[in-house]
């Protein structure tokens, strides 16, 4: 099953990149997709079969992206304000903060970490034994962690439903 889905994804991407629709280039595309799948078929999808859960996760992930974009724009305005502020040294108060997380799955840990890196004033430094080490540029933005974002990521990857 995962072979077919990855083949479809790769072939669509090949057509977009190539832009040539003669027989020679399309057959090259098929050969390239088969080569890539034979070398690294277990990289894109790790489980061999799909469940109904995966489709729900994809839909929820797509719904999560607009909220993330909004947060990213807020984060950038914050950082730009700090960077252009004349008395910058009084405003920033950097620390590494350490907090425990409820998330367990790989994908949700990674999504949460990258969302933290992209949003206001915080960068993930390390994940170890269920603890996040986060560098925060001032204590006000750190007050929101883990907070709403963790809830949302947990909702996207259905952490709450299976205990």
């Amino acid at each position, binding site marked *: 099953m995962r072979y077919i889905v990855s083949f479809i994804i790769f072939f669509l991407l090949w057509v977009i990149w190539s832009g040539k629709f003669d027989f020679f280039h399309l057959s090259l595309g098929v050969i390239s997709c088969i080569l890539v799948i034979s070398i690294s078929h277990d990289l894109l999808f790790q489980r061999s079969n799909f469940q109904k859960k995966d489709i729900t996760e994809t839909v929820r992930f797509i719904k999560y992206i607009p909220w993330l974009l909004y947060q990213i724009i807020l984060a950038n305005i914050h950082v730009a304000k700090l*960077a252009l502020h004349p008395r910058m040294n009084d405003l920033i108060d*950097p620390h590494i*903060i350490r907090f425990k997380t409820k998330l367990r799955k790989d994908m949700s840990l990674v999504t949460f970490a990258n969302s933290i*890196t992209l949003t206001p004033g915080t960068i993930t430094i390390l994940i170890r034994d269920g603890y996040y080490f986060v560098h925060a540029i001032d204590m006000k933005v750190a007050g929101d962690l883990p907070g709403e974002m963790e809830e949302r990521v947990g909702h996207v990857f259905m952490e709450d439903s299976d205990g």
Partner: protein
Amino acid sequence: MSILTVVLNIVVIVLISFGVFFFAAGTVGFLRFPDFYSRMHATGKCDTLGVVLSCAGIALYALHDGLSLGNILVSLKIMFIAVFWFLGGPTATHALLNSAFNSGILPWTKDGKAIIEWPPK
């Protein structure tokens, strides 16, 4: 110049200008912040949004002379760059800071306490 072209040009100019503004803010922050942990805040975030906004603007402008198949494919390719950078940029930021933290460098702080527990008890 039809009215549609004018609107398209204005949207493209606004998007690219905002992208360049964030690039500029990131660069200024990169010069001014006190240590490289904070400098990473400026570059990691502002560059990601700058690339995404500029790529959106450029992808829109790639459609300016008609909706032919080649133009749409070029525009999709540019959006693929944005998606790639959206995944890769935070990871590169994280990798560099992770290696710095693992080599034992602590960030610049005001009160000398580098790592604090959260939420405070």
